[in-house]
């Protein structure tokens, strides 16, 4: 699968849920390539903005879309990575708020 196919596949599922891809398509395709790289490296699409442990069970919460996306999009308008955003976020010229890491430090198990 290439990043364009992944884009279409995810768009169909995520858009109806209110999660849009960032309007910065260069960023989106970079991140989608990152997801495909991680799929190849680890066997699952780990968040491209977080370091994977390589253990699917330990990384379950940061497999994209991550467990924290819902809260981050609600609070900041975008996920941690800025891959998924709300409609309002895309409509705004910015500046957009910084999204801090919500994952608790004890979850990191490298």
């Amino acid at each position, binding site marked *: 699968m290439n990043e364009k196919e992944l884009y279409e596949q995810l768009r169909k599922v995520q858009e109806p849920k209110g999660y849009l891809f960032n309007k910065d398509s260069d*960023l989106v395709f*970079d*991140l989608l*390539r*990152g*997801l495909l*790289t*991680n799929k190849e490296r680890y066997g699952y699409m780990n968040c*491209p*903005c*977080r*370091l*994977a442990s390589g253990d699917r069970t330990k990384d379950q919460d940061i497999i994209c879309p991550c467990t924290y996306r819902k809260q981050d999009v609600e609070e900041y308008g975008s996920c941690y*990575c*800025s*891959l998924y955003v709300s409609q309002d976020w895309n409509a705004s010229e910015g500046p957009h708020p*910084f999204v*801090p*890491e919500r*994952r608790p*430090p004890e979850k*990191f198990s*490298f």
Partner: protein
Amino acid sequence: MPPIKMYSLSTCGHCKHTKKFFGDNGIPFEFVDVDLLQGQERTDTIEKVRTYNPNCSFPTILIGNQVVVGFRENEIKEALGI
């Protein structure tokens, strides 16, 4: 200009934007893509990042003796004194 060392991931958009920011502004910097490291070097580097940023999130940027977590342009500029 204080020395800059950045711990980043090769797949991360914020890390890429930070590298571009330094590059576009002609600011010299060193970086390590931690996801590309292996074995002991990876373990040792992660431990080092944790000492600066317990969340071990990326990018973690050392500017002189200041630590900036994430691509926060204003904080980076402030730390650089520009």
